[in-house]
């Protein structure tokens, strides 16, 4: 098999003195879709934020490699440039910055890192129009301030839109399904499915199995109390749907 795109080895992390991640091991290859499922508070967002480089979380042990780079040594912006994308569980509202300006700055930062020319406003607009259609949004949306006053569904669609524009190698979706009605869920899932491909991988974090009816994963991992306690194929999600996490949680600490 080819070299992994992402390799997490025995990752431990803590916040405010509490250990949240207690030894995560996970290997993702290009083209794969992995799902992490787990109850509230099990550490899903912590894992996502640690991968993206949030400083609030202190990594106390372990390694993360992405395409031959030691991810934990990179700044958040360098991780983005290497091809990591995090769709936030709670996207931040930033009044005073238009979505268009922000995305253009982001795209050009990544292009610069890769030694490509910066795009001017016209080229940029050309390239993002089709991506807007992907998440069923119109152009007016580009002139709105970033996430300001957006509904929950709009925020999540904006995350998927940004992902489509930035074309990451690895996209981590942190509960992109939560708070979405069924129509919005379909739009978001369709957007993701159309971005699936041989040279891209996804880590889909979710609390419910529902999303996985639309984004069918290759692998499912169960995260309980900071550890992956079981891994399997997509059928594992259905099993969780029927029996919940109780079986696993009972085993914690044994």
């Amino acid at each position, binding site marked *: 098999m080819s070299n992994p795109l992402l390799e997490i080895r025995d990752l431990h992390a803590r916040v405010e003195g509490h250990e949240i991640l207690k030894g995560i091991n996970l290997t993702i290859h290009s083209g794969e879709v992995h799902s992490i499922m787990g109850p509230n508070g099990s550490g899903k967002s912590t894992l996502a934020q640690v991968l993206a*480089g949030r400083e609030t979380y202190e990594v106390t042990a372990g390694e993360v490699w992405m395409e031959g780079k030691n991810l934990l040594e990179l700044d*958040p912006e360098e991780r983005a440039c290497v091809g990591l994308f*995090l769709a936030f569980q709670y996207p931040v509202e930033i009044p*005073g910055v238009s979505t268009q300006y922000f995305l253009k700055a*982001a795209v050009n930062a990544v292009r610069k890192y890769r030694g490509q020319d910066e795009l001017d406003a016209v080229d940029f607009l050309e390239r993002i129009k089709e991506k807007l259609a992907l998440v069923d949004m119109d152009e007016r949306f580009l002139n709105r301030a970033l996430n300001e006053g957006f509904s929950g569904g709009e925020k999540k669609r904006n995350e998927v839109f940004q992902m489509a524009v930035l074309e990451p190698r690895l996209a981590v979706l942190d509960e992109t399904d939560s708070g979405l009605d069924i129509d919005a869920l379909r739009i978001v899932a369709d957007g993701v499915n159309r971005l699936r491909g041989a040279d891209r991988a996804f880590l889909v974090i979710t609390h419910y199995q529902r999303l996985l009816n639309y984004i069918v994963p290759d692998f499912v991992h169960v995260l309980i109390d900071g550890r992956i306690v079981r891994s399997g194929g997509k059928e594992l999600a259905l099993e969780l749907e029927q029996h919940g996490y109780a079986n696993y949680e009972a085993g914690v600490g044994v």
Partner: protein
Amino acid sequence: MNMATVEQQLDHYQALYQRRAGQLTGGQQNWFSAVRQAAWVRFEQEGWPTTQHEQWRFTRLQDLAAIPFQLAVEQPQQPLDQSRLRSTLSDSAVLRVVVVNGRLHADASTLDRLPRGLRIGSLGAALQSSDPVVQAHLHHYLGRFPSPLAQLNTALFEDGVFIHLAAGQVIEQPIQIIYCQQGAKQPLLIQPRTLVVLEANSQLRLMEHFVGTSETVYLNNVVTEVVVADLAVLDYYRLVQENEAAYQLSTLGLHQGRNSTITATLLNLGGRLVRNDLSATLAGEGADCVLNGLTVLHNRQHTDHHLWVEHTQPHCHSWEYFKGVYDDHAHGVFAGCIHVYPGAQKTDAKQTNMNLLLSDQALVDSKPQLEIFADDVKCTHGATIGQIDPEALFYLRSRGLSEVQARHLLVFAFANEILQQMKWRAVAVLVERELVQRLQAPELAGVEM
């Protein structure tokens, strides 16, 4: 401070006054001379404000008061080097009025073909000729508690700008008044005085632009009075860019008639020290007053905004929204009072002061205040002081923006809320350009958000 120095400082100004009093514009027998004398007496009595005064607690003038300023009007007028005016608006239709060392500079101004109903000229000349509009309005709008500095201006000013717009006139061309300095070898005391009168139902757009064109220390002791009569509409801008060794002490008095509207945007990039005493009197039913402010300081700059908004009549609306960004050792002061008179029912007033600190040494003192003597009103105030939101910073960085770039963008975004509301876009573009420089953020050039 001890009394000896206070007196020495007054001695210096007494000498200036005695030398000048005989030759003041308007002469000694003019209707205005009694006003000047009374103002002088008030200044002598009150002296320079000290931090013992509640209104001056956070702003020390002691150093300033000790500088032996010379009166700028005694400097000979020279041709103006216009390249020093960092003030070009992309708006070609602007009527430009240039005031140098406190005197109207006719050659540098474009006043030859004014629209019908609009008079723009030297306030000194209008005073000299006892213009009835000037007689009716000058020195009536200094606020309920004029500062000693406003008294000093009244006692000794020589010139400035007089703008009069006749009833019912709507002027499309905006006016830009540029206040600048020249030819100073010693510290100058510059005292421009401006009076703007909009008669009923008229409309105007006006900017007062203070530009530091000399590198030396000067004191710009400014008074501007603005009267907006019934149903008239004023879109007002002030941009302060004094040089970083300079002091500006200013009084801006706004007076509004029935159903009139003032939208004022106060943009301040500071000097060494800038103090602005702004008073707005909503003196007619249904008046609407919007005061938006943006201050962006660095180094050791100090700015103090004292706002006094008084509602004397019912059904008026006032809105104050002041933002500040402070870097390095900069110090910002915001003190705002909304005063509602008995009988001013249905007053709707809101005051907000938001501050962003970019360094651990930067400091803000914010003091909102309500004085309400009517029972059926809606008045609120609020103030915040904070740093850049780390979550927002992380969000931007996670998309590839460098930390520096993300910081710049967030600071700009904070400021941009004020710029976005400005109707005169050419001014917004100018300020945006200055902000890009001030923030040392060339990547933001032409940001247009």
